């Protein structure tokens, strides 16, 4: 974990779980695995607070625990996982994706699971159905549990949700907040509860248990009658088992990331070529969704015949046209699609890792272009393309006057976007007898940019916190007034009274609130945009790590 990542993690924890959890979390991130006693000693927090915050972290998978390294009998150690904490930043995107794919129900299921870390299926279904019912209040309808259940099963089927690894009872004791039992029985997968669960190690990972849950969602404050019914039902149902006790579910972030990656590739194809090409690539990716392993460099080969059959009929693409499009895709220098063979009308693959590398390169180029201007970007691209060049060659190829080119090259060099390689003709490294070659190393540069992204997001969050702190008084006031207004409306007050209360916020204050709202929105959307860059770069870095390993 770099300092930037820890800072960002701290900010995210503070925002979502408060200052105490932040303190414990960042402490764990900085100092690695530690036992409870050391944490209490080093953070100086009271025992119960530390325990509670550890519970929160474990509940969200942001922290895992294992029996001590010094053998059986020594205290359990806790380790925070920074990657999981950084996922918090992407929550809006997960929720939005679930909404576009599975509608409101999917959105709420993912939202509930993200907010609570992990839940059993039955409780998720109940909560979601209740919330949906509450939203439908105006229409007087209610949500059936079975509908939510089927949405949940669909999410599991497409592997967006997965079971939490079995914990051998240790988790239950954690959840209730009791002191951790030393030396938890070692079950497979315990050391990394947030790691991707491969179906091989957990055969039931994506198996939906049969739950017995019949009924409809209930409104919480609909009426006294409903309240009665609810409590009655609750009393009746609570002792009842739904058949899925002890099976907890969590969001499969990796699956979402694969989806994001596919989307990035598809939109890149749409930008570069055209809509039809992107639809063909989308079809190819969808066909190989299940058969291709998450870390594969390219999808399993698909024949042109198969692709043709799987294309949605609404696109109306004829077979010869499809062949032409596929040739176009293969010929394209970005190499999104590659040809793997000639059988079956040509076998085609989507080069996932190469596409990621190309997208990351485009990201770097765009970062240079926006920050240093298009001419510097020209030099940057030139170096990416030609690998090693001398200063004179850079000037000639880029057609930029020597003086300016030198300036740009040195600026890029000082920002570590361009590297300098010395090749001496004699062992004394005399400048007159040394070649100075400029080059761009894509992977380290991408890593650096990723760190910049972390810092940027942290800056944006800090700014947002600062902005809200600045107008704290105003916000509180407006909230109070809104509360008064709501209560007045319920009690059926006179319209004059309402306007009187409303006028308690003066016009300039209103304006200030409005601008604050704008600022916060802008900062929020900027955070999400930077997160997209972060995602691309992270995917690229991890893909090169797996392909070289």
């Amino acid at each position, binding site marked *: 974990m770099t300092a930037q990542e820890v800072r960002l993690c701290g900010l995210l924890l503070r925002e979502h779980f408060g200052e105490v959890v932040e303190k414990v979390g960042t402490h764990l991130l900085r100092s690695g695995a530690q036992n409870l006693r050391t944490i209490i000693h080093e953070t100086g927090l009271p025992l119960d607070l530390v325990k509670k915050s550890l519970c929160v972290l474990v509940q969200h998978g942001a922290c895992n625990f294992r029996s001590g390294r010094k053998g059986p009998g020594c205290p359990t150690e806790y380790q925070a996982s920074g990657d999981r904490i950084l996922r918090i930043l992407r929550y809006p995107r997960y929720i939005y994706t679930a909404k576009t794919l599975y509608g409101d129900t999917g959105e709420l299921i993912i939202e509930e699971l993200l907010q609570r870390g992990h839940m059993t299926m039955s409780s998720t279904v109940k909560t979601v159905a209740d919330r949906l019912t509450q939203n439908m209040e105006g229409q007087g309808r209610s949500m059936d549990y079975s509908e939510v259940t089927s949405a949940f099963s669909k999410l599991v089927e497409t592997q967006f949700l997965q079971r939490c690894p079995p914990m051998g009872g240790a988790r239950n004791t954690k959840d209730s907040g009791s002191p951790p039992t030393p030396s938890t029985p070692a079950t497979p997968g315990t050391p990394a509860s947030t790691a991707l669960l491969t179906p091989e190690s957990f055969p039931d990972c994506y198996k939906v248990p049969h739950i017995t849950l019949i009924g409809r969602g209930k409104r919480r404050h609909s009426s006294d009658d409903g309240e009665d019914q609810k409590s009655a039902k609750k009393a009746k149902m609570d002792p009842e088992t739904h058949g899925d006790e002890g099976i907890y579910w969590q969001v499969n972030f990796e699956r979402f990331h694969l989806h994001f990656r596919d989307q990035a590739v598809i939109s*890149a194809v749409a930008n570069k070529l055209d809509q039809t090409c992107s639809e063909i690539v989308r079809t190819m990716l969808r066909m190989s969704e299940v058969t291709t392993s998450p870390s594969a460099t390219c999808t399993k080969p698909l024949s042109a015949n198969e692709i043709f059959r799987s294309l949605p009929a609404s696109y109306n693409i004829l077979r010869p046209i499809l062949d*032409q499009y596929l040739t176009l895709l293969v010929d394209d220098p970005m190499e999104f699609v590659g040809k793997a063979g000639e059988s079956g009308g040509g076998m085609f693959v989507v080069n996932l890792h190469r596409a990621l590398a190309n997208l990351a390169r485009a*990201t770097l180029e765009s970062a240079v272009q*926006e*920050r240093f201007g298009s001419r510097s970007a020209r030099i940057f691209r030139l170096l990416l393309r030609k690998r090693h060049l001398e200063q004179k060659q850079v000037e000639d190829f880029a*057609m930029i006057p020597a003086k300016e080119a030198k300036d740009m090259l040195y600026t890029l060099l000082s920002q570590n976007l361009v590297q300098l390689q010395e090749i001496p003709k004699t062992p004394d490294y005399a400048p007159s007898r040394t070649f100075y070659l400029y080059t761009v190393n894509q992977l380290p540069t991408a890593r650096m940019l990723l760190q910049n992204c972390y810092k940027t997001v942290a800056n*944006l969050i800090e700014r947002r916190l600062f902005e809200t702190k600045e107008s704290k008084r105003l916000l509180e006031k407006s909230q109070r007034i809104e509360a008064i207004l709501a209560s007045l409306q319920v009690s059926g007050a006179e319209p004059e009274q309402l306007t009187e209360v409303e006028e308690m916020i003066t016009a300039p204050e209103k304006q200030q609130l409005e601008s604050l709202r704008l600022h916060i929105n802008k900062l929020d959307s900027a955070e999400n945009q930077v997160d997209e860059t972060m995602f691309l770069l992270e995917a690229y870095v991890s893909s090169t790590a797996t392909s070289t390993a």
Partner: protein
Amino acid sequence: MDGWRSHDTVLQRCVHKLDIGQSNDRQTVDISLLWLWLLLTCRAAILKAVQLFVVFFFFIFVYHRIRELCQQFPHGITDQVIQNDMPHLEPQQRAAAINKLLSLGQLDLLRNSSGLLYRMKDAQSASKMKGSDNQEKLVYQIIEDAGNKGIWSRDIRFKSNLPLTEINKILKNLESKKLIKAVKSVAASKKKVYMLYNLQPDRSVTGGAWYSDQDFESEFVEVLNQQCFKFLQTKADMSRDSKQSPMVQRNSSFATSHEVWKYICELGISKVDLSMDDIETILNTLIYDGKVEMTVIAAKEGTVGSVDGQMKLYRGVNPVIQPTGLVKTPCGLCPVFDDCHEGGEISPSNCIYMTEWLDF
């Protein structure tokens, strides 16, 4: 220089011997009675005349033959070539002929790895160099050898071993005679290179079409860059709107470098004549801008715009991604990004860039 001179004298000595030998040879010529009578009457005088005559014509013949050979082989001929061409000629005669030509200043004697080489001197330069001393000739020779790339005065000094002051004097002298000229190089503005007066300086010296008076014309390059892109872009747009099959669409969006060149020429934005290579350099900058793609295809020999049976095709392309999210924030463009820390002089809370961006 000294080497050559000593060689000259040796050859001249050879020629003397040759002359005597020749006169003996020619005594067996068939002659008429009248000639016999004349011979008898004023034998000595006629003998001398005939001798001179024969020698003269012989020289004319050999001289012409060598000149032809030199023209045939502009890089120079060796002794062996002359020998193969005129096998009846004896070594001494050959030497005499060459010696004469050398002394007349019409032939150059060069030395290479395989031996001596003879080369015809420019008739013009030979006449120009009249009245110059050997040092001047030497400097001229060095400058001539440098060709249209030119040579720096310091390099002349190294090659000639003459003192710098002397060289400067000679250079001034030659310049005033309009035998050589000084050209300012674009590589280093203070550096003057010398070359023969009638030569067109090399591109590496003048910088080609992109320089005027040693200044790189970046505006000109930018304008050409934009125009080329506009041309390719319209072509790509047109092909996209044509609603043809995808392959045809792609292929019709390509333009050869020759087409671009013709377009630029017809636009008339350039005062200087641009070559195809110039346009290709411009198109390459577009590739580095990420706006254009290039492919090379095989072309039929003799097709317009093909070079060595290859044709370069260019087409405008769309960017793969929109500006990335990072650079849409002020931090992505911040010049003091590395100095920014919470609680510091520069911090996200008091950042002026962020304030401006938020109020925008």
